[in-house]
């Protein structure tokens, strides 16, 4: 995902730490990620570059401004879900969209974090982290 041995090592450490935080937030052991689709989460036919742009320019600022706005949260999480496949690749920007989603959700009140779409986003994020941790371990 990034160049350089030391960078890979730093990245692996950071992702592993995030994975443990996430497991704690999900109240489950690492590796228990759900395979259920997230409503609205289809990437078919969409350009990931444009999806990322809309996410970061429109939905992410909106949900940061008003996390209590249910429509803004739904739109944001649906857009994040569209980037699941891209986030498995080598372009770190797409995984970072999920990193930001985690950081947003983690800052929400517990009741909002437990909503279906938010929880499924966290579960899918766990699977993405597992994917990249495995890839980084393989490259070491």
């Amino acid at each position, binding site marked *: 995902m990034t*160049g350089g041995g030391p960078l890979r090592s730093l990245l692996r450490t*950071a992702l592993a730490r995030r994975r443990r935080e996430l497991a704690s937030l999900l109240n489950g052991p690492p590796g228990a990620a759900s395979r259920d689709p997230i409503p609205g989460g289809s990437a078919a036919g969409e350009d990931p570059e444009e999806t990322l742009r809309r996410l970061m320019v429109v939905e992410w600022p909106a949900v940061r401004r008003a996390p209590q706005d249910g429509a803004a949260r739904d739109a944001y999480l649906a857009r994040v879900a569209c980037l699941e496949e891209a986030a498995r690749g080598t372009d770190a920007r797409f995984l*970072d969209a999920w990193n930001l989603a985690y950081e947003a959700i983690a800052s929400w009140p517990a009741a909002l974090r437990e909503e279906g779409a938010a929880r499924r986003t966290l579960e899918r994020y766990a699977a993405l982290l597992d994917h990249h941790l495995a890839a980084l371990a393989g490259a070491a």
Partner: protein
Amino acid sequence: MRTVGLCASLGAAARLWRGLGGLPGIDLRLLLFGAGMLGRARRAEPADWRLAARLFVTRRLAATRRGLDHPATLAWLHARRPEIGLYASAALCPRPVIDGFARGVLRLHLGLLPEYRGRSAMEWSILEGRPTGVTVYFLDAGIDTGREIVLRREVPIGPGPDLAAAVRRLARREAEFFREALVRLRSPGYRPFEHDGRGRRFYAMSRLFGGVVEEAAAISRASGACT
């Protein structure tokens, strides 16, 4: 060459004047603009205030609380028939402003173009293990897509308590980079770097990746290596 520095802060205006005021062939005026300009000016250094007062009296500096695209501001600009603009603001430059300059408006980008467009370009370069640097280019309506790149220089992240401070310090060197770009632009046989559309647009970085970048930059500084 009639040049106008478009500055969102008094500090930036003072730095531009000190760095470029005596550059041969450059007739420099400064415009301090925007609603936030007064608030930022209150935090300016006394020496910057004294310089600003002197420039104001000699009509080298003008100030307005209006935006750049306000009709009165545009009229002021057009009356000066400027050739080159130097844009010292983080906000997007309105299209009518760009169009008001015969040659165009130069902007400093903290990142190497065309590869690293958009936000946090320094941080993304470090995360991807690529060189850091700065670019001075002519603005167009897009995000760091201006086709004419006048200056492109690799610059290591210098020392500092953290990466954000080092990046801020680099940003305050805008006059040095503008000066280099203007000299280059006016030199015989000037040839721009072409923005060929390569590269990607970057966005705000997460705390997770930001932490990785911070650690990588700290290791790089401690080992004396240039990032």
